[in-house]
């Protein structure tokens, strides 16, 4: 009994990425340091072709493969393409950063591709086993990437914290999954949903949902399970922080969708309350504590926590509109986050990380175009129109109001207003403070081009959000 040939066709994107990661690993062995850039271009080509393959394989239908452990559906296709795009940005921004610090090694891109493979597995998971294995593949690659600059003490410390807390979170999730298996007798997400749908929620089911929610909250970095986020964001090399803060968040959203919405969707009344608490706490702690930060990476870490709060708001509504709003939110957030960390990379140079808020002083005098791009990114994170951040927040709030939780929407708006302070403070520092450091910005054409495109995309998506929003709605309806 072997899987049908059609199964392998559906799995082509994963097979391609895995093969290319192995090819790059071997090719890189034979390259001298001057030719190392070949590994980089191979990695970028892999992403491009993976996108082409994913789009041509996905036909808008929902298809199962490999005995129900793998699913190819519109949500998987869309999220995968978003992941390729953000990963390509992360690789692009990382290139000069790594080569200036003598960290430019093929393993960085190989581990990045393996992490991305983990995200793809997670996005296409249709069995608790695949969810868990995809998560571990992603996390293991990320732990290694955080520790990549092993001679730097903060990196090693961040990697250690990330590893220990990640293992704890996996344990929680696994415990919830084993309980779920015990209750339903199956690992298949669809069969679990069918089995739970027939019964009323009992004590063990809520017990199960609790563990799954806690595990997910750890991975997302929602309060009160957020302790690792600031330390890891600050300690990791900036390109790795960028990768964790953008692409892996899309995968985390997919994991929440597969586990909460699709498998234990029947228990929505039970996990709704838990998510309300997590979302409110994340919004409150994330926005308030970010005000006190002087390190930009740390501030963006707390900002991530507050954005996770918004993401949870969309999911807890349990409606298709809510899920679509969350999906729109996470894709645009990944772009914003990539852009913001990309700006830190642009300002940094060997021996100078540019990760303090003071390092952005007077950016407008040094280069007004990049100051404008950073302004767009910060306004988008704060949710100021006409940037896409405004529309994303609006869609989530509409979904929350749609399920008659106006008080929750009001609280979210209140905390966003508090949060706007620290984004706008950065804008003030850039435009109204005197530049202390007048070194010209890095000249790399590809880095500058990527950042400009990234910043303009935020603005354009804000002006024309319709097509992406429609796509998200279609995906959730289909």
């Amino acid at each position, binding site marked *: 009994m072997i899987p049908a040939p059609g199964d392998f066709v559906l799995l082509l994107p994963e097979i391609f990425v895995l093969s290319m990661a192995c090819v790059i690993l071997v090719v890189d062995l034979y390259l001298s340091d001057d030719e190392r850039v070949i590994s980089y271009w191979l990695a970028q080509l892999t992403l491009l072709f993976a996108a082409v393959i994913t789009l041509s394989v996905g036909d808008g239908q929902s298809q199962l493969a490999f005995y129900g452990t793998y699913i190819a559906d519109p949500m998987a296709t869309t999220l995968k393409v978003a992941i390729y795009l953000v990963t390509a940005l992360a690789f692009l921004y990382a290139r000069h950063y790594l080569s200036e610090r003598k960290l430019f090694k093929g393993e960085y891109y190989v581990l990045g591709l393996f992490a991305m493979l983990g995200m793809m597995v997670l996005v296409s998971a249709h069995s608790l086993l695949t969810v868990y294995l995809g998560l571990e593949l992603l996390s*293991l690659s990320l732990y290694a990437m955080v520790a*990549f600059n092993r001679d730097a003490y903060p990196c090693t410390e961040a990697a250690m914290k990330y590893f220990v807390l990640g293992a704890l979170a996996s344990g929680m999730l696994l415990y919830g999954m084993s309980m779920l298996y015990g209750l339903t007798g199956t690992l298949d997400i669809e069969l679990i949903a069918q089995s739970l749908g027939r019964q009323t929620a*009992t004590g063990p089911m809520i017990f199960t949902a609790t563990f799954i929610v806690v595990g997910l909250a750890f991975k997302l970095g929602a309060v009160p399970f957020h302790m690792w986020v600031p330390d890891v964001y600050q300690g990791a090399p900036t390109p790795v922080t960028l990768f964790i803060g953008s692409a892996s968040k899309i995968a985390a959203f997919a994991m929440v969708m597969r586990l909460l919405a699709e498998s234990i969707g029947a228990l929505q009344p039970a996990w709704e309350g838990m998510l309300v608490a997590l979302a409110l706490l994340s919004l409150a702690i994330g926005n308030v504590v970010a005000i006190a930060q002087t390190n930009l990476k740390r501030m963006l870490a707390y900002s991530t926590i507050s954005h996770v709060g918004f993401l949870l708001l969309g999911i807890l509504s349990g409606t298709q509109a809510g899920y679509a709003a969350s999906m729109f939110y996470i894709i645009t957030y990944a772009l914003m986050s990539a852009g913001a960390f990309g700006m830190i990379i642009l300002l940094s140079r060997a021996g100078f990380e540019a990760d303090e808020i003071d390092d952005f002083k007077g950016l407008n005098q040094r280069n007004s175009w990049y100051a404008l791009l950073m302004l767009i990114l910060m306004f988008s994170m704060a949710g100021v129109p006409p940037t896409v951040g405004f529309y994303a927040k609006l869609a989530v709030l509409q979904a929350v109001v749609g399920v008659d939780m106006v008080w929750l929407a009001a609280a979210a708006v209140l905390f966003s207003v508090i949060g706007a302070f620290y984004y706008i403070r950065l804008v003030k520092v850039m435009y109204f403070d005197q530049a202390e450091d007048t070194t010209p910005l890095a000249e790399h054409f590809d880095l500058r081009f990527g950042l400009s495109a990234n910043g303009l995309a935020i603005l354009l998506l804000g002006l024309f959000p319709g097509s992406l929003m429609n796509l998200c709605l279609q995906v959730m309806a289909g």
Partner: protein
Amino acid sequence: MSFERLVFYTFAAILVYAATRVITVRNPVHAALHLVLAFFTCAGLWLLLEAEFLAITLVLVYVGAVMVLFLFVVMMLDINLASLKAGFVRYLPVGATVAALMLLEMILVLKSKGFDAASMPPPVRHAADYSNTRELGSVLYTDYVYPFEIAAVILVVAIIAAIALTLRKRGESKMQNPAEQVKVRREDRVRLVKMAAETRKPAESED
């Protein structure tokens, strides 16, 4: 008490004893050996659960391979016991309170109606000719081939990560290069020096 129950309680008691000793003995080698005992007893419990294959794998892989490696590491590392024990008493009250609370919460939940014997019946027993290994083998490469392959990829990543993080040239490490060693010529090692013959003075040879 049936024989099976007797076996279970004996094994469970040994397991709890061994697990406690792992974290209480002073000597790390003894701790590792107690961990071996814990694994072995656990394998016995799994046999009672009709998971023969997993039980044998536990003994072969963990007791046979992992723990032996672990013992090597423990013996090679110079572990400072005093620093490991430091702060134990200071953290004990907090730790004990948290543990007690968690235990209480677990008891409250697990004692609730949803978890009683009526709603969670014991699984059906299999016949004597039922082969656990055959059942696992028949699904591992068919139903679960995709997760199985991902697990393999995870192992590859573990290898890459371990090598990428540890392989580097260190100044202080002394290594031999056999290729260089066999290429060596006499001229590289021996230098013949012409010098005038020296004669000892009698005064110096006295002392």
